[in-house]
């Protein structure tokens, strides 16, 4: 085990894959000379040179589309979006080309591209820079969507993503980048679609992913101390594929569900989870499924308001827990 930050863990995965496969190439704005807007690729240009670590112009539709085209020929581009928020200008390339080209060609083409970058609010950068498009991406068959919550998972899932022959959307979080964690050494990968039980419990199931796992664990710990509640926290790790079985198993044990997500409620990932659980485990439920998500408005700038009210946080998770337990 080594202690690495989430950022370092991703860098380690990128570096190991660059070394393993000559077709892996990293492209994005400021990834090379500037060392990455969030320093994920720091030092990589020096180590691997300008053929493998490539600075692009501010041209998301162009360079993402270019990466998709190159991937059709067997290149494995890992494209950094400085923020996933900027996916909107490349949306056509992602949903019409990456997601559809295999289908429309009757399975003749594979598109082994990874698009990665941070997707989160909570940094007071306003509505344009705080999008969390995992629901929008997962809506498109053909795409896979990965949302790691910790360093070990981030590394293992990134390796899986790069080796995957389908387009993988990898959503990180700027507020997790600096958080250290124990990361197993060596060439460890994790299959997509295998959720983690981040905390075992019997009284309530929280389904979360990304940074909301951190909030949920904090809330669960406090609820144990204050109320003696044993809360199970499931970390989805990937949205598509989705580990439905682990969720249903937990529901059969706890009979109560709270979904915690950094998503506005309308057509969120949690909407899909709630629909799936009630379709497949209605009889197991002792209470309605509730969701703690983002307050339904564009991301507000005002720093304390965004943090305390608009986004999920341990206090809001606790309020949700108490409601489901009522």
């Amino acid at each position, binding site marked *: 085990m080594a202690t690495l930050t989430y950022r370092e863990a991703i860098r380690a995965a990128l570096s190991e894959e660059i070394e393993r496969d000559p077709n892996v190439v990293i492209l994005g704005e400021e990834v090379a000379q500037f060392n990455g807007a969030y320093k994920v690729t720091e030092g990589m240009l020096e180590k691997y040179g300008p053929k493998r670590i490539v600075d692009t112009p501010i041209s998301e539709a*162009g360079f993402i*589309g270019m990466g998709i*085209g190159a991937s059709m020929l067997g290149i494995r581009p890992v494209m950094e979006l400085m923020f996933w928020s900027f996916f909107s200008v490349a949306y*056509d390339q992602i949903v019409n080309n990456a997601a559809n080209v295999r289908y429309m060609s*009757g399975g003749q083409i594979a598109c082994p591209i990874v698009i990665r970058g941070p997707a989160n609010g909570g940094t007071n950068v306003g509505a344009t820079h705080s999008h969390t498009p995992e629901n929008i991406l997962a809506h498109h068959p053909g795409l*896979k969507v990965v949302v790691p919550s910790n360093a070990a998972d981030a590394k293992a899932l990134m390796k899986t993503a790069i080796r995957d022959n389908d387009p993988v959307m990898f959503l990180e979080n700027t507020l997790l980048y600096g958080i250290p964690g124990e990361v197993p050494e060596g060439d460890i990968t994790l*299959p997509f679609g295998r959720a983690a039980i981040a905390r075992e419990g019997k009284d309530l199931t929280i389904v979360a992913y990304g940074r909301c796992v951190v909030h949920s664990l904090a809330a669960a710990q406090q609820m144990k101390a204050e109320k003696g509640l044993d809360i199970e926290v499931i970390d989805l790790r990937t949205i598509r594929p*989705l580990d439905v079985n682990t969720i249903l198993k937990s529901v059969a044990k706890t009979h109560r569900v709270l979904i915690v997500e950094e998503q506005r409620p309308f057509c969120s990932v949690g909407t899909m989870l709630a629909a*799936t659980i009630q379709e497949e485990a209605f009889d197991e439920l002792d209470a309605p499924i509730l969701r703690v998500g983002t307050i339904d408005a564009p991301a507000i700038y005002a720093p304390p308001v965004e943090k305390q009210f608009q986004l999920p946080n341990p206090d809001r998770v606790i309020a949700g827990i108490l409601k489901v337990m009522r």
Partner: protein
Amino acid sequence: MSKKPSAPAETGVAPAATPSLPSPHAQAPANAALTAEQKIELYRKMVRIRRFEERCLPVYNAGKIGGFLHLYIGQEAVAVGACSLMGKDDHVITAYRDHGHAIAVGMDTKPLMAELYGKVTGCSKGKGGSMHYFAPDLNYWGGHGIVGGQIPLGTGLAYGVKYQGKKGAAMAFMGDGAVNQGAVHEAYNLAALWDLPVLFVIENNRYSMGTSQERSSAGELGKRAEAYDMKWYVCGGHDIYEVRATLDEALRCAREQHKPAVVEIDTYRYRGHSVADPDKTYRDRKEIEDYRNTKDPLQIFQNQLVFEKVLTDTLIAEIDTAARAEADRAVEFAEASPFPTAEDIQKDVYWETDQPQRTSEGRIFFNSID
């Protein structure tokens, strides 16, 4: 059509008002090198495209083809001329008016017709339709329905070729309407910035749906290359020799020096934008007739090859009969083929789920329960 020859096209060939006989481009290196058989093959391909598409019409009108059907009739010399120059590491990608390029790269017309019928024997197993033909084994990367959206992909093919150290180039085709898409300009910049071996080929048929070039685009289309320090060419697309002469030079430059270029080719479509376009509001019938009568690419090349004594009347008739018969056989094949099944809907979505063994776990398809 009055288009002034563009001065800055250093190496370009000015479009002839009406292609003359004999073709002034017959002695260009790419054409002088052709054998009689190769010339006949070029002619045959153009005829096959036209007869194939003409055969599509009654099928469409009988309700057997769904959605849109964008015919390439009138533009055949462009795709056939361009694709005839492809080497093994050259790639091609185009928009939704893609039947001509498909036949030009060597796709069999049976699966092409079956695709229009939505049959499982179609080139995309009935999952793509008219606008989405693909043959990666022939370096043909589609067939794309979003105007301009294929241009970054074509740039990526060039990036891939260069990254892998191969001596090849990509030709990314688009219409005159597509040049106004932002993605096209982003691709221009990347290609020029990184010296990618890609040719951006504008098939300027003067209209994007019902909007003429004059009503949609400021300035000359090819000239936009200058903003990116790219070479550009403008040439006529009615004489296949001219298409080949121009693209041959641009392709060599791309392959050997990794230099991108924009090639604007004047051409014309005889039919409506799609078969559903009544074609009554935005252009003159006389304009169409003039093109048909004086610039038809099949007629021009036929005249040229008769002049060269490569084609005879008998051979012309033979080629035509064979092309009609081929189109009929394609229809028979399509008619006799089955549709994909309901189970086929969720195949070919992910590479992973098409393998005998999945590598990921969990649910990857989400179906309503009914």
